[in-house]
């Protein structure tokens, strides 16, 4: 049996930011899906894992769940990864306290 979507139903052809963990792991040393991001368009903050992710585009496009503007784009080519974050004001990444060290001036 096939599901018929009513025409007035909103598009549901997205998944969420949880699936970014694999593609982003190639680039970053930490899990960015637990990071909190702020949308540059509407100012909403929330976990990267809760973004709306459309992976049927070339690469992956992650949109703000509140205003649906693009917050993150990641395209993988054979020899590089393109990461476009212009739709995000910041990413706040949880870090363990013990790894926080500020390099001081070099002692002479």
């Amino acid at each position, binding site marked *: 049996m*096939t*599901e018929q*979507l009513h025409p007035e*139903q909103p598009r*549901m*052809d*997205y*998944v*969420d*930011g*949880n*699936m970014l*963990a*694999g593609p982003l*792991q*190639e680039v970053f040393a930490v*899990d960015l*899906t*637990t990071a909190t991001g702020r949308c540059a368009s509407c100012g909403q903050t*929330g*976990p*990267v*894992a*809760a973004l709306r992710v459309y992976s049927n585009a070339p690469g992956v496009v992650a949109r703000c769940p509140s205003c649906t503007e693009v917050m993150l784009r990641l395209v993988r080519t054979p020899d590089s990864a393109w990461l476009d974050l212009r739709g995000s004001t910041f990413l706040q990444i949880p870090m363990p306290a013990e790894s926080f060290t500020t390099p001081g001036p070099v002692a002479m």
Partner: protein
Amino acid sequence: MARTAIPGRLTKRAGWWVARLVDRREETATACTLVLEVPDWPGHLPGQHVDLRLTAEDGYQAARSYSVSAPADGERIEVTVQRVPDGEVSPYLIEGLSIGDQIEVKGPLGGYFVWRMTDPAPVLLVGGGSGIAPLMAMIRARRAAGSRVPFRLIYSVRTERDIYFADELRRRVREDQGLDVAYVYTREVPEISPAQAHRIGVADVNSHGWPPQLEPTNFVCGPTGFVEAVSDILVALGHEPRRIKTERFGPTGA
């Protein structure tokens, strides 16, 4: 398309592990659990997922995310796969992959949709269809650790025949103290059920979930439309959005 799971020339790189299928179990007519042996697997947390990658003979690659449905057992991990009609990857995983075949695995992935045993908050799990997979990992991890954290599961399925892990869930409810399971049937109810077939609604979540005053952690996993509906209900019932963790796997049937 004819496809070999992995060409021999591939070695572990960029976080991909070479795994071997060691066992498979039918869960429903359209879903099965694959038991993979991953040498040097570092272990995972309940709720995490892996990416599975297939490579065709011409080098074309396709990867998909799948939830791990059981706690790690040494180098063995279990993923439960629902067959997506016309899907690029799942029909091959269910029908084309034989015991002993190799496949590439990246993971464990994701630190968001994860139950941490150190968190004493009561837990509500709401699963739609194959969305039960990561929730089952949490139920099994709770059992394995002897945790007393109270768990409630609301499981929405089309019919009784579509329940994954049906026997084990019955047993868990009998044996695991502090675990309650309620079912919602969307197409056809079992004969003894007093309820009508319906989509999950406020009454289901209100009766079988926790009051927001207890500050439970709510994990919701299923098709995108299902997850949107349930998280809207939880917010309307007064749960804080940060206590609602969601995982969407696409349109219904995906």
